[in-house]
């Protein structure tokens, strides 16, 4: 199973600044995802980040606000740009591994999350 680490684990930032969140996986994975969980709301997918191609953003999320890098199969970054208090949230990265064979199915793993507070 994949082990995922995220940095920073939490941060308090000023309005208008940017924060880059790092996600490191201990194995090579194809699919990486970035999620946001705002207080009292369900988990929301921001974008899918595949190595070697542009990230695919979900409706309501744009690259200028949430630029993503995926330089290799074990690492990705998400930047939250020009932050406002509405960006206060937990940001999670996730990977999906596919298991093939009898009854093979995909399995998802999540990082510990980055708790962001914007003042």
């Amino acid at each position: 199973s994949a082990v995922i680490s995220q940095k920073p684990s939490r941060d308090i930032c000023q309005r208008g600044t940017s924060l880059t969140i790092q996600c490191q996986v201990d194995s090579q994975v194809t699919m990486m995802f970035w999620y946001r969980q705002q207080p009292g709301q369900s988990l929301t997918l921001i974008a899918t980040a595949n190595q070697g191609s542009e990230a695919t953003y979900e409706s309501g999320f744009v690259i200028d606000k949430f630029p993503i890098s995926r330089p290799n199969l074990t690492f990705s970054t998400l930047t939250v740009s020009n932050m406002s208090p509405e960006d206060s949230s937990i940001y999670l990265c996730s990977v999906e591994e596919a298991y093939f064979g009898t009854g093979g199915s995909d399995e998802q793993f999540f990082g510990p999350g980055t708790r962001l507070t914007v003042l």
Partner: protein
Amino acid sequence: SQELEQSPQSLIVQEGKNLTINCTSSKTLYGLYWYKQKYGEGLIFLMMLQKGGEEKSHEKITAKLDEKKQQSSLHITASQPSHAGIYLCGADIGSGTYKYIFGTGTRLKVLA
């Protein structure tokens, strides 16, 4: 409106009791995922269901996906305090492309 309805929103049960959490969608679910979230421990993947009528079990937790692939239930038998946390269902509703949506979660408390 929420595309993935989860119920109940919160649940308090006595240790040893059984309980069920439901997850319903108006769309076909191409993959239904159950997660557990404990504060400070991150989100934990429990099970994935893909086929209509599929049922999977892990220890005392059983998850089922109905034949129409629009509803799933998570059943915990003989609940324990260690089962406490937030249970979240998530689903892939994209046909051929990844489109994940999530329910709002069910907060479970188990009284010893």
